């Protein structure tokens, strides 16, 4: 009997400790202003990012130069429409005119962060970038709209 009472007390203490610990998990918030100002100052120092192509137009070019807007294609969570930019007969850029957004999500309050991790609200940045990392595009809808834009660009 004594053993059971002692073990119940010990388990109870652990449960109580874990509950208190879960309640008091600290959230480290890093202000956004410093990084935003740093990025804008560094962008001023470095030259802007522009898409360049070192190639020249050849008689065998696939496409005519210009901008071509593709059809609106149905993606799983919305629609995708792209614009293809052709320079010197080659695709030099693809812009998104329409894309699915994720407003269907329920907004949750998130108190989730480990002491070693930091947390912040995301904030749009103004600095120029050379490359963009992001989730892979809806390939089918993307290819559909882009193929349409490129068919218009056929030389």
């Amino acid at each position, binding site marked *: 009997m004594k053993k059971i009472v002692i073990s119940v007390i010990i388990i109870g203490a652990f449960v109580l400790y874990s509950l208190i610990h879960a309640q008091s998990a600290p959230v480290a918030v*890093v202000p956004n202003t410093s*990084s935003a100002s740093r*990025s804008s100052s*560094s*962008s001023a120092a*470095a030259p802007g*990012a522009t*898409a*360049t*192509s*070192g*190639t020249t137009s050849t008689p065998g070019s696939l496409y005519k130069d210009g901008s071509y807007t593709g059809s609106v294609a149905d*993606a*799983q*969570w919305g629609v*995708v429409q792209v614009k293809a930019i052709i320079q010197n007969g*080659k*695709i*030099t*850029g693809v812009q*998104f005119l329409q*894309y*699915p*957004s*994720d407003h269907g*999500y*329920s*907004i*949750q*309050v*998130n108190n*989730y*962060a480990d002491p*070693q*991790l*930091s*947390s*912040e*609200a*995301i*904030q*749009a*940045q103004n*600095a*120029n*970038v*050379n*490359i*963009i*990392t*992001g*989730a*892979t*595009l*809806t*390939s*089918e809808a*993307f*290819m559909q709209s*882009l193929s349409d834009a490129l068919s218009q660009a056929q030389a």
Partner: protein
Amino acid sequence: MKQLQLLMGMPITVEILDSSVTEAAIECVFASFRAVDATFSTYKEDSEISKINRGELAEDEYSETMKTILAFSEQTRQETRGYFDIQHNGLIDPSGIVKGWAILQAACRLKEAGFSNFYIDAGGDIQVAGTKDGNPWRIGIRNPFNRKEVVKVLAITDRGIATSGTAIRGQHIYNPHHPDMPLQDIVSLTVIGPNVYEADRFATAAFAMGKRGIFFIEQLSGFEGYLIDASARATFTSGFERYVL
């Protein structure tokens, strides 16, 4: 010199800044992606992976490349406690590991060919080498809620960066432990690693872990991560800020 082609169902961009660059060098990169696609595309009837999934190839008939990828996939499965798994509904689909591996292979060939300042971007997963105009490459993390915006600008040189997410493609990553459970609480996870192969495979696995994924990245040495959740809050690892411009 910069070129974009559509291969493997995604835009692939190659930019080489070295003055010795030739069209042929860039074409080599695209050719290597086409070769990878011919072997690993689950959409192509005659690809090796499709033959394997139809039971037409015995294990000793697999190509060396296939054996390598399957070994890497198994290694990643073990390193991620099963969160990375190419087996699904009785079929294998190693595309989660092939992309990063293909980018890295192509980047290694460019290095061997003597180029030192370039990047290869395949559908948002990127290997960068050297610098641009003497500065590290500036890589933006796309806002998963608004494709026209970036929410972070990073200065990266000689590393790989990959993002897994649900932003555009919908649920193309699932939790192998609970395949039917949607991953709704996080929308984007960007991982910076020693190269794009490492960054990509751990980004994919960590994304499948949901909110716990950022802790997984935190405990990997040489990796940093930036996770964006459904409420537009970001959680990032302890060393992430040294890459932030």
